[in-house]
């Protein structure tokens, strides 16, 4: 039982990183990404590959994962600067589908069988294979990510991002370099998702394309919306709730997606600011002035 709770805590930690990073794009910069699981997958595969082929220790593998995912995020962010809402949605979604097929078809990623035998982290001969010890690594990563994002959104740069979200042209007039901010935030969010992928790969020690498809992208989105767009505490809550909920409602497992779908629609209509979105960060900003 304890082992199981620890397992859930690790998964929740990984989802917290994913949700917070997607929230940076959606809730703070006001952009949209429906392919976030692709960066998660890129991180997982990159980390697994460098660990398997070049025997990188875990910290280096995690860094490689962040680098690979970040570079891909920048590669997607740069050309899509001009695109807005629906267009950006379909391009990021298309990117997710393409990456899913790439994982499935490349030889180096093992195709549909995926990669097995990914080494667990070890430090000075101390293995982090036991679930309890692995949780320490995840907890450290989550705390670091939360600290970085929290400092970011409370800083000048965070205010600049929110200005872009609220009114891009006004932000530009105020001298904010909007394209640079958008690319940087895309890159950062992708790198964080890559870190989550690395944590996942070295924990489960086996990865295949199934974990990184459209379904996962939408699950992360549901976590962001549930917690509240533009609220970091909300993202943490959203990730924890949606990780725990399917476990608590075991018998209703087949209704899981039904609940997620209804949750998204119902929440947007009844409480668009999410569970923990604060008034000032609520979706009121999304209401069009006319």
């Amino acid at each position: 039982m304890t082992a199981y709770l620890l397992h859930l805590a690790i998964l929740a930690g990984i989802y917290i990183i994913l949700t917070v990073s997607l929230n940076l794009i959606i809730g703070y910069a006001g952009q949209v990404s429906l392919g976030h699981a692709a960066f998660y997958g890129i991180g997982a595969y990159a980390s697994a590959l460098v660990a398997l082929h070049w025997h990188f220790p875990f910290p280096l593998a995690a860094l490689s994962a962040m680098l690979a995912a970040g570079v891909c995020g920048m590669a997607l962010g740069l050309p899509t600067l001009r695109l807005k809402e629906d267009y950006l949605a379909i391009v990021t979604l298309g990117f997710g589908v393409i990456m899913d097929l790439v994982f499935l078809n490349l030889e180096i990623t093992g195709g549909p069988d995926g990669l097995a035998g990914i080494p667990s982290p070890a430090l000075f001969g101390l293995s982090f294979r036991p679930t309890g010890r692995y949780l320490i690594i995840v907890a450290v990563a989550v705390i670091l990510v939360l600290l970085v994002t929290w400092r970011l959104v409370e800083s000048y740069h965070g205010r600049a991002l929110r200005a872009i979200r609220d009114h891009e042209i006004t932000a530009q007039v105020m001298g904010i370099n909007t394209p640079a901010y958008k690319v940087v935030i895309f890159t950062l969010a992708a790198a964080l998702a890559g870190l989550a992928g690395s944590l996942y790969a070295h924990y489960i020690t086996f990865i295949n394309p199934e974990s990184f498809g459209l379904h996962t992208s939408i699950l992360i989105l549901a976590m962001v919306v549930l917690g509240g767009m533009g609220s970091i505490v909300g993202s943490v809550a959203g990730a924890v709730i949606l990780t725990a909920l399917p476990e608590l409602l075991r018998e209703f497992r087949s209704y899981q997606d039904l609940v997620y779908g209804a949750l998204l629609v119902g929440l947007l209509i009844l409480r668009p600011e999410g569970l923990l979105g604060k008034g000032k960060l609520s979706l009121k900003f999304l209401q069009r002035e006319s």
Partner: protein
Amino acid sequence: MFLQQLLNGLTTGSVYALIALGYTMIYGILGLINFAQGEIYMFGAFVTVLLLATGQVNFVLAFIAGMGAAGVLGVVLERVAFRPLRGFHPLVPLISAIGASIFLQSLALLLFGPNDRPFPIQFTFSSVDVAGVPVSTLQMAILAAALGFMGLLVVFVRYTRYGKAIVACALDRDTARLMGINVDRMVALTFFIGSALSGAAGILMACYYNATYPRMGLLPGLKAFSAAILGGVGNIPGAILGGLFLGMAESLGAAYISSGYKDAIAFAILILVLLIRPQGILRGRGE
């Protein structure tokens, strides 16, 4: 071989075009993308297949019932998931539509089970030689049906009172209201027609691939969305061209480049087009 692939592509492309018309009409009038269009396509197919499976309904009736059910589902969706969110930032209805899409997909999974269902009636289709290429009459029938629906839609939009009212709402909702047009009713009508066309597309595909299953709408829906953007959202001839073009590109790409990446081709083209010409092949109403 080349002509054969081109024809296969034209057949699936005509179905993408039918779905793309729904996206484009709804975008034209409301400025939002109905992400759940693929699920409407799936429900249309299921209604027809289930009715046919009872053995008591003839094909034409079941086809009309499938389209009707899809249309009604579209109208219900508009009432529940979109109307309360009108006037919000486009991100909000977009996410709501994604929620509706997951909801409908898992509902279908619960109601109909995960397995493929074959099309209940077998048509005896033969192969005809056209310029040395064997063409199945099933393909010709699907192509003809899809093109027929498109023709009907164009005539409806151009020449009937209601069609013109929809165009007026798409051009300027407030002015249309001043002219005495009931905008909400026109929006509902647009959803009905767009969804019914998607339903028809679903039925045609269910017949073509002889398979109906809960996730069948996912990829065609996304590809048709790409087709609509490719043609310029809000632009009806654009959606038709975009759909046909994507279908053919996909079929040729799968044959000559790599079949493993077949589903990626549509998105790769879309991303390239958006980078070079964000307003689509034919200028859309969106920009």
